[in-house]
């Protein structure tokens, strides 16, 4: 593209950052050094957050506001015989008590286009309030709105529900056996995907070594610090308005469907989110708030307690993964046979798609000629599972990265070398048939992460052993190409030369809004502090799609870039005329338009001139992701995602051979982010993702006892504290070859993938045992060491 000199993504064109030695060389997009993009600037929202000025979902107050609460099923499987709400309705201060009968259209639908290979078209259905049957513990049954939160709780206790417990099924393997209690009438198999490439049996026959192993990973919770919350009211214009903590303002459509309202009569305003990680991707409080506010015609607030959040909101899928990996004597992989079985819990939510992500990435970032992947997901009476950072593509890292380590060990080869030998490169195809069109940084990331570990530490005591492990991964960024994803953004100059960006982006704390300021500032020649960004209002900001799927910087970043470039093209001729120069020679910088000889004119003056001449001072940018038709997975496949982010993590751990306790001594996480728009935000994503992954590896588990959740407190559901984890050293690679703005790739999800396998590999390096079940608690490690008899 003329004027766009992207640096070559190969060889020494790869720039590194981090590892304390990294410095970046300047790049030229467009045709001059970047001034704002690539700088680790302090995010505008950080100043608000350190002063606690940010108003989250639960911080919003309205005059005359009621307080909403949800009655939930205590049983994982039961028939509802009768609900008596009369006592609750009569309690003074109660404004509404709603059950399924009061919901105009008591169904939320998720379409899953491009359907699964065996089960057929799927419309994932979810009742807003349970009608005749409850299918998991915590399923919503009734709603209350009352004058105070205490009254709302009291009213919940006055609702009498007569349940008839029914047999449930709590394990996906059992659920798929003949005669298992059906969770839904259509059977317990929710979806099945199959990917074939080459001939896996032939590949396994060719192999000199075949490693076969089954891995289990657990249910975990997003456990963001901000529980689900929002406030809804019917605005003066009759529009139902919901200000809520969400990753998806487009849920206004779902609320409209539930209430039977036109879509343009519901508005969702996304507050700055106190952590999402996929847990605020599905509808949380929105439909409940909409129902209560519409019924009472008063503002209603709903804030879930921590216990409620941990009990009843969808979680990460537990997987059972059976891997058979074949390799030649020299470490070359020849076959990968993978069977995945996941638990969807009681409802479909996004399970079919999660399993598709898992299937597409199940062979890892390696060239494997013969691959067969079968991925199934079943209904049970466990809490539902749905989106969580990594979305299926992270569970399988635990499988393929444990396998490749064992292949290396079995052959007496260096695990790092075996990975490098098999690493994917640009131009290679994934087993699903998608060719990789941008730089694939697996080998560089591997090398950099491993080197950054430095000299090996000595054990801290006689019963302790130190070991090292590495794990690579790939994670899609952007949505499936047959979803025809797009994002839009409006960018304008004000008359004083400041800049406004409007776009429907929910900011979940990753610097989503702030990065857009940097992009606009870069193109429009102002300091980032001179850019105001208005986000996440379905009525007032152009829609930009969900802050999920590692897509927001990629998609809305491209939309803002597009809008800013258009705007720049509009105003440059006006500036050039004022400067008596040619538009091609004029630059925008420091709030001025600048001629080649250094003469300057303030952008405010340029805007006055634009106004006088009738030249528009704003532009709407729309970015459309690469689109395609659904692929036939068993017939050669094709492109599934716009692109992927690659990385490698290296860990050094110490294992206590008397207790089985594992401590992580050093941790390095390296990813090719294409271009770091804000290196500080990128580092934060990498460090936070890696630590969340370490929690998954070592600590976290939602414990379910026949559908009953035993971990509904942060005292029993353990996420890492500052003492549980080491500093994470981020190493940022910038190939410049991503599909996002300025060559960026997405980095929200990728860093959560590798930690579990990196730690498991390090444990085996230290003490010679292979852990195949998560989390790797002291008890599991002690058992593997034979300490427990």
């Amino acid at each position, binding site marked *: 593209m003329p004027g766009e000199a992207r640096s070559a993504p190969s060889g020494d064109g790869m720039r590194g950052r981090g590892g304390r030695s990294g410095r970046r060389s300047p790049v030229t997009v467009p045709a001059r050094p970047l001034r704002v993009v690539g700088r680790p600037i302090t995010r505008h929202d*950080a100043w608000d957050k*350190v*002063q606690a000025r940010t108003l989250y979902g639960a911080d919003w107050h309205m005059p005359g506001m009621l307080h909403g609460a949800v009655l939930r099923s205590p049983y994982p499987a039961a028939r509802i015989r009768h609900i008596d709400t009369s006592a609750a309705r009569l309690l003074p201060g109660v404004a509404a008590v709603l059950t399924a009968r009061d919901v105009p259209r008591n169904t939320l639908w998720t379409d899953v286009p491009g359907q699964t290979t065996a089960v057929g078209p799927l419309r994932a259905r979810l009742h807003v309030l349970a009608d005749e049957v409850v299918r998991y513990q915590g399923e919503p049954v009734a709603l209350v709105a009352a004058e105070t939160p205490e009254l709302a709780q009291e009213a919940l206790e006055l609702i009498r529900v007569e349940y008839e417990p029914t047999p449930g099924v709590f394990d996906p393997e059992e659920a798929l056996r003949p005669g298992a209690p059906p969770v839904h009438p259509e059977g317990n198999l929710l979806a099945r995907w199959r990917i074939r490439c080459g001939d896996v049996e032939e590949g396994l026959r060719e192999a000199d070594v075949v490693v076969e192993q089954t891995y289990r990973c657990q249910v975990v919770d997003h456990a*963001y610090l901000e529980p689900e919350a929002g406030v809804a009211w019917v605005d003066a214009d009759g529009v139902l308005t919901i200000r809520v903590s969400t990753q998806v303002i487009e849920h206004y459509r779902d609320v409209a469907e539930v209430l039977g309202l036109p879509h343009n009569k519901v508005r969702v305003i996304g507050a700055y989110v106190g952590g999402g990680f996929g847990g605020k991707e599905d509808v949380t409080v929105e439909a409940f708030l909409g129902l209560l506010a519409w019924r009472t015609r008063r503002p209603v607030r709903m804030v879930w307690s921590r216990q409620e959040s941990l009990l009843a909101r969808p979680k990460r899928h537990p997987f059972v993964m059976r891997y058979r990996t074949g390799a030649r004597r020299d470490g070359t992989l020849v076959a990968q046979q993978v069977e995945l079985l996941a638990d969807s819990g009681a409802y479909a939510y996004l399970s079919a798609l999660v399993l598709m992500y898992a299937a597409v990435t199940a062979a890892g970032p390696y060239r494997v000629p013969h691959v067969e992947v079968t991925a199934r997901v079943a209904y049970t009476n466990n809490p539902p599972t749905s989106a969580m950072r990594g979305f299926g593509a992270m569970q399988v890292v635990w499988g393929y990265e444990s396998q490749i380590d064992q292949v290396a060990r079995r052959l007496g080869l260096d695990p790092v070398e075996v990975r490098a030998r098999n690493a994917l490169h640009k131009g290679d195809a994934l087993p699903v048939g998608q060719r990789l069109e941008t730089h694939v940084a697996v080998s560089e990331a591997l090398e950099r992460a491993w080197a950054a570990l430095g000299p090996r530490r000595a054990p801290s005591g006689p019963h302790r052993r130190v070991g090292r492990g590495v794990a690579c991964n790939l994670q899609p960024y952007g949505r499936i190409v047959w979803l025809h994803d797009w994002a839009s953004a409006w960018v304008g100059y004000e008359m004083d030369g400041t800049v406004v960006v409007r776009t429907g982006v929910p900011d979940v704390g990753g610097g989503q809004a702030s990065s857009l300021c940097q992009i606009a500032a870069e193109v429009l020649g102002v300091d980032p502090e001179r850019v105001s960004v208005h986000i996440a209002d379905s009525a007032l900001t152009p829609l930009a799609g969900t802050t999920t799927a590692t897509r927001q910087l990629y998609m809305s970043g491209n939309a803002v870039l597009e809008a800013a470039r258009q705007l720049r093209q509009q105003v440059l001729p006006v500036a050039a005329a004022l400067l008596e120069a040619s538009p091609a020679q004029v630059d925008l910088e420091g709030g001025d338009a600048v001629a080649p000889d250094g003469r300057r004119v303030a952008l405010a003056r340029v805007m006055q001139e634009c106004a006088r001449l009738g030249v528009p001072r704003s532009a709407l940018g729309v970015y459309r992701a690469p689109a395609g038709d659904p692929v036939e997975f068993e017939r050669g496949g094709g492109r599934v995602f716009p692109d992927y982010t690659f990385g490698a993590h290296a860990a050094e751990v110490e294992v206590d051979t008397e207790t089985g306790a594992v401590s992580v001594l050093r941790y390095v996480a390296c990813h090719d982010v294409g271009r770091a728009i804000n290196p500080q935000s990128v580092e934060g994503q990498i460090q936070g993702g890696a630590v969340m992954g370490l929690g998954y590896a070592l600590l976290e588990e939602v414990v379910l006892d026949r559908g009953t959740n035993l971990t509904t407190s942060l005292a029993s559901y353990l996420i890492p504290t500052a003492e549980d984890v080491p500093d*994470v050293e981020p190493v940022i690679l910038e190939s410049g070859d991503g599909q996002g703005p300025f060559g960026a790739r997405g980095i929200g999800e990728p860093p959560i993938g590798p930690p579990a396998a990196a730690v498991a590999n390090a444990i085996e390096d230290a003490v010679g045992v292979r852990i195949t079940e998560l989390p790797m608690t002291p008890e599991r490690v002690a058992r593997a060491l034979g300490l427990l008899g």
Partner: protein
Amino acid sequence: MRDVQVRLTLNGEERRIRAPAHRTLLQVLRDDLGMTDVKEGCGEGVCGTCTVLLDGEPVSSCLVLIGRIDGRDVVTLRGLAEGGRVHPLQVAFATHGAAQCGFCTPGMILTAYAFLRDHPRPTREEIRRAIAGNLCRCTGYTKIVDAIAAAGRDGGGIRDAG
């Protein structure tokens, strides 16, 4: 439930508060006084999100019944800023990228403030131990430790405020 009346110093101001005896300091601050600079993360004293300084020491305000604060000194995050100036620890959190979603940030800064007051030049390990009662799910803690270490090195202002 009977009401109790308490006198306290709240961010340097004398206040009298009347509230039902079962209410927690957190509920009174957030719901009755509208102080949204105190956040609720778990309501059972585990996550540290609702930390305030009670007579200078960090406590989970969700565990303190309102009757217990009679005659005592309570500082929330807003109380750290002196004369409208942002506290150096707040600056350090912003400039080091220690706030991502920002929900744990008020409690984290208050814990760090009390810690630095008593331990002016801590090691990273000491900082990690000090903030182990304040959960963060976004940052992985590294940048929070960076920010506290930097504020400790700079020293300025840590000893005076509050």
